[in-house]
């Protein structure tokens, strides 16, 4: 868990600077066994994705593939990169770039009529 600077009148006044040390080694909240289970789930989803690319599921193909991709993406971000357990500011920094990129490039593709093609 992250240590947030304490308000005046506590450690700051006493000269104790230990509150400034980042103790956010968040992965200690998750056991190695849990990481292995998450990796197995990711492997199964990948196998399912590959299988799906060989069979004809009609109009469900694209939404299913994109959903599975998103599940894998956010599973790695939340569990392996510890964004689920870490300080919210890291989430803001990363998602700011991610959503900006998605917005900018979806708009760029729309100007080329990509989605209507």
């Amino acid at each position, binding site marked *: 868990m992250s*240590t947030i600077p304490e308000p005046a009148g506590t450690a700051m006044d006493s000269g104790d600077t230990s509150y*400034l040390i980042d103790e*956010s080694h968040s*992965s200690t909240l998750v056991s190695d066994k849990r990481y292995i289970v998450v990796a197995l789930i990711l492997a199964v989803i990948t196998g399912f994705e590959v299988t799906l*690319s060989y069979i004809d599921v009609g109009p469900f193909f694209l939404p299913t593939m994109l959903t599975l991709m998103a599940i*894998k993406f956010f599973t790695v971000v939340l569990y*392996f990169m510890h964004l689920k357990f870490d300080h919210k*500011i890291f989430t803001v920094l990363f998602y700011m770039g991610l959503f900006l990129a998605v917005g900018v*490039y979806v708009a760029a593709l729309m100007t080329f009529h*990509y989605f209507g093609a």
Partner: protein
Amino acid sequence: VNVVGEPIPADGVHHAGHSAPEEHGTTGLSNNKMAMWLFLGSECLLFGGLISTYMLYRGRHSGNLGPNQIFDIPFTSVSSFVLLMSSLTMVLGVSAAERKDFRTARIWLILTATLGATFVGGQVYEFTIFYREGLGFTTSLFSSSFYTLTGFHGAHVTVGIIMLLSLTMMLKRDRVSGDRAESVEIIGLYWHFVDIVWIVIFTLVYLIPT
């Protein structure tokens, strides 16, 4: 504060070159870790541009040298599985480092670098096959955008391998200044990022046909 005026870490143990308050700024969080997250956010824009360019041009190819004809899905699936498993070994390395078990962490880091090298080797093999089939960098808009996108990703994986091996050597020789577990975690963040970029590339480029 100790006798020379340096702050004493929260755990009471003074590591060589341990995180000083200025490395944590006013937020109480690690500036290095924050910088890495900011960098990864900006990398989304880089790869977003490359993926969008590929999506626009993937239909612009000549004859039978298009994505549906040349991609070897079973081979790329194995490569993807290898990179996915490297994320597991990386996170186990981070976990070991945070338990201060740096000997085990080094083993996981070496294994991660090996899996990464296997992935890059597979990519070089794939590029060689495509080139022999007649798909050069300037053959078509599809080939240019494909090689640029996957080449950039491969370069990122290669940089990650170099960072992993350098970190392993530095940990072994006790040359890491500051919080060693945090250094492993920050390299881990970069490694997982190249994995999530590949998750997107694998689905959009390889599995979804034109």
